[in-house]
């Protein structure tokens, strides 16, 4: 967005709130919603990629040697990756801010 949401005046919005700018959801860091975060343990990880596949926010990304990590800017802490991880390599831990 050209400016933060709380600075838009009503007459500055597009008709029907149409968003013309492509891909600007990236600017909205939904990681703020999280109360638990996933911790990847690469000693248990089999590199099956199920966490990457199941993440509803596409927040899991591949790192070196085909292991995976989570982009905490967008991870909402839903825990689907930990639930789907067969070898138990992902643990959800309480996050304090």
């Amino acid at each position: 967005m050209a400016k933060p949401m709380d600075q838009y005046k009503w007459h500055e919005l597009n008709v029907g709130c149409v968003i013309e700018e492509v891909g600007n959801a990236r600017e909205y860091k939904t990681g703020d919603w999280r109360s638990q975060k996933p911790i990847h343990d690469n000693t248990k990880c089999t590199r099956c990629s199920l966490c990457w596949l199941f993440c509803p926010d596409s927040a899991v990304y591949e790192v070196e040697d085909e292991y995976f990590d989570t982009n905490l800017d967008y991870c909402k802490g839903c825990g689907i990756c930990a639930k789907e991880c067969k070898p138990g390599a992902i643990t959800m831990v309480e996050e304090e801010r």
Partner: protein
Amino acid sequence: MTKKKGIEVSIAIAEAAKLARVEVISAYPITPQTHIVEHLSEIVADGELEAKYINVESEHSAMSACCGASAAGARTFTSTSAQGLELMHEILFIASGMRLPIVMATVNRALSAPLSIWGDQSDVMAARDSGWIMLFCENGQETVDTTIMAFKIAEDRRVLLPVMVNLDGFSLSHVIEPIVLPSQEDVDTFLPSYNPLFTLHPDKPVTMGAYAMPELYTEAKFAQEAAIRNSKKVVDEVMEQFGKQFGRSYKSVETYNSDNTDFAFIALGSICENIKTAIDDLKNEGKEAGLIELRLFRPFPEDDFLKAIKGKNRLAVMERAMPGGATYGPLFNEIAAIIHTHNLNIITENYICGLGGRDVQPEEFIHVFVSPKKGTNMDVIGVRE
């Protein structure tokens, strides 16, 4: 081309949609709307109109398909009644919030239960705050003209809102009336093809219907409210332009014999014809009563209404919907709010009538005029006690 011919009002509305060159129709049949969509379906199947007719399994889907079609830039039409309108209810707000200029003919019918297929206006009144522009028709010719005007109002860049054309079930939809269908050339001149502001197109992707956080929702709804309030000017312009081109003039608020009367009926839709008969009968007896007829109900034409009630000392608001526990009927509450906020001292009475297809004869309107009701409660005309 412009001769009057006897035609069923529903068929005439379908012909009006054809004259408007609608590009997408999605509807689900329900009495008393059925003949409109049946005839449109035939017109499309016979190749007389280049349009896509989307068959759906419910009204919820019909309105959803209309939203998609309108978002893609098509001139879109649908029609429904009663339970169908209720099943659409959720999507009505999406159409108006997304500023999609869909036109819908709502053939007003009573809501179940008890099951009734007959006319009253409880369906539209339950949807009155959905952000749609709402027009009401008194006779068959008006339904044709209003349908054509509705597209021009809806698609105006200053408006971009869905428009509902209301007509009473059976007492209007199923009668054969002498109607002038305008020529295609004249309608094409009046109503150019729809030029959308935004469309869903891969060449220029946009997001429609995104969610709004608490930081934005108020501004979004304020913008929508401003749009419907400002649409009044466009409604007036379109009605005036239509009058100039087609010779049949309309106004947001019409009056009948009301210029110098102390008393006026206030009503919407086809009962206005019977009220006019009652007024003529009263005139023959030397009594003077007026009628204030609201063609435009949303946005509520407050200024025009105030002009129409100038000099009145008694108003009888006649409406075809039960209040459902509200203080008074929905139309009365609007009017009471205007009278209160302008500090006017006018006796204002509320009469509920014509529910579930019950006829209201001129004698009953005459009775309202000559014997004002006692007390402050609303009266239900003709209820057996």
